[in-house]
């Protein structure tokens, strides 16, 4: 027992139960699902995880701020639509493969703009972010339908979808981009002034205000970051599809929030980190992939995912009992 508490790895796992869980399901699927434990499948998991994962990085920032963003799925769809459609604009018709560049840039800008709108409204009106972004979730989806006229767009240029199959060394390019984003956001959160202020704003908003942190613009920047990351996720998803569909990204906000909470970020703000979030998205990615490989019937996948979500939450509560000092409240 003493060993149990002294081993630093075990102690770390107690504090980050999600990584313990990732380890368990990893071993489980390695042993019981054919084709799971292979380099290529593991890369697949990372690529599949990257869609939700990129948004989850931004959601971690926003949630540590004490906010939430429910509109990311719609933002993702809007960015994807722009990324695919702008390529075919007449203005860029002579650019060859370079026509992809302005399209992607515009898509990312649109994502940032959507985030800025959410952030600005939260800042100026003081309405709860849950409500603001619940509205935006409907509204931005409406914009997607207005823009696409209910149709799917597809990229004429196969160079666009080829991008998603490219590899850098042994790594798929999408996995590399996701990896870079993870490192960048982790660095932002743990090393920069903005990142540290993110904890301050979420942990004690009044203290942050009194300390002269401009809380409004600060939150707006984080909303712009999540808008950017959702748009990036949308662009990368659209390269995998060579197309954009108006219904893209429905429900993603729910899975993103789930992953982030599994990773230990508190919905009330002030607490959380990228390492945990990475664990959260990997847990969901591995579960989905492993269950596909094991051919778990689709109906049961819903039940299993839902139950595991609640179970992990329960274990987290057991391990990280909040300091209520044993009071029976």
């Amino acid at each position: 027992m003493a060993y149990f508490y002294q081993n630093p790895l075990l102690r770390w796992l107690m504090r980050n139960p999600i990584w313990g869980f990732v380890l368990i399901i990893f071993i489980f699927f390695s042993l019981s699902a054919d084709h799971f434990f292979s380099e290529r499948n593991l890369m697949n998991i990372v690529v599949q995880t990257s869609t939700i994962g990129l948004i989850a990085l931004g959601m971690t920032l926003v949630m540590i701020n004490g906010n939430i963003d429910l509109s990311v799925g719609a933002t993702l769809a809007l960015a994807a639509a722009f990324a695919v459609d702008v390529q075919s604009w007449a203005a860029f018709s002579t650019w060859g493969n370079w026509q992809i560049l302005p399209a992607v840039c515009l898509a990312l800008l649109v994502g940032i703009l959507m985030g800025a709108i959410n952030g600005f409204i939260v800042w100026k009106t003081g309405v709860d972010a849950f409500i603001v972004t619940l509205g935006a979730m409907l509204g931005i989806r409406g914009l997607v339908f207005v823009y696409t006229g209910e149709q799917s767009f597809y990229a004429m240029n196969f160079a666009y979808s080829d991008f998603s199959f490219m590899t850098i060394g042994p790594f798929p390019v999408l996995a590399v981009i996701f990896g870079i984003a993870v490192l960048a956001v982790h660095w932002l959160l743990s090393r920069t002034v903005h990142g540290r202020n993110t904890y301050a704003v979420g942990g004690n908003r009044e203290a942050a205000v009194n300390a002269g942190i401009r809380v409004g613009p600060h939150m707006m920047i984080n909303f712009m970051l999540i808008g950017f990351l959702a748009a990036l996720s949308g662009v990368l998803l659209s390269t995998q599809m060579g197309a954009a569909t108006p219904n893209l990204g429905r429900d993603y906000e729910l899975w993103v929030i789930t992953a982030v909470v599994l990773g230990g970020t508190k919905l009330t703000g002030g607490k959380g980190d990228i390492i945990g979030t990475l664990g959260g998205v990997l847990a969901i990615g591995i579960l989905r992939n492993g269950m596909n490989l094991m051919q778990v019937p689709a109906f049961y996948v819903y039940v299993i995912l839902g139950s595991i979500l609640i179970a992990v939450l329960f274990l987290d509560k057991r391990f990280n009992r909040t300091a209520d000092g044993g009071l029976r409240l």
Partner: protein
Amino acid sequence: MLLARLKAGGPAIAKQGILVAFIVFMITFSLMSDRFLSADNIMSVFRQSAIIGVMALGVTIVVIGGNLDLSVGSMLSFATVLVVDLHDKIGPELAIPVMVLATLCLGAINGFLIGILRLNSLIVTLGMLSAIQGLVLIYSGGQNVDIVDQTGTWFAIFGRGAMFGIATPIIIFLGLALVFHVIMTTMPFGRRVHAVGGNPTASIFSGIPRSRVVFMTYLISALCVAIAAIILGSRVMGSQNNVGLGYELQVLAAVILGGTSLLGGSGSILRTVLGVLMLAFIQNGLILMGQPYYTQWLVTWVVIIVAVWLDVAAKRGRLFSPIA
């Protein structure tokens, strides 16, 4: 004096933001479409909003108690599939109580996890949303269910019938709203829900059984879902497995529009009814005006934010948030 009254939460403008928005909306729409305010149309909108409305009543109570319930969407699918499927197998007089009991069991699971184990309600009900959807599919094997004899069953009364010239769903919705309004404003249970939502710790220190109160709110929410399922099943006389897909967010939008605070402790059943009707009238009005269906999403975006903003602004006594 005004400020004091505003702060005291008395009957001041603070509470009327949604009502003002509602009236403005009704006037604008009625100017743009002459059919909008016809008795037929109003009846039709009320009838359509009954299902979401009944669910929103339950969710309002959960939210006043300081929690969320996102599982109501798939719970509605569950309850509707169950009652429709059992209708032809064991008859409506048994199908209804069996379904209600089964749905209450789901509510009890929510209540146990959130009320007794104190797990976060957002995540628990998200998990339940997924798990219950799976349960429905496993139960039905993915098949649609139908009531074969649609005209000969008294089950038709809940969705298709009328009393005193008013459609039954409307009577059920408004009647239930009245009952819950009375419970929440004039009965001890309502007071306790407000206290638990407003300050759970202080409630415990006042001897209020917090766990039991939260548990009860989820049972009530499940009961509302069961009633909504009876209306829905009777109206459609059949059900798909995902019939409640996305309802949880529409319901939540209506509750928020009614000014119920997500922080818990304050909110009103009657204003939720307004929120429900407002969303239904927006949807109906835009279609009457020949707008494509997705414009309603854009309008809802603006309406939700403006309505809640007015509410918040009235409570703090200034339009813009003071944070820099």
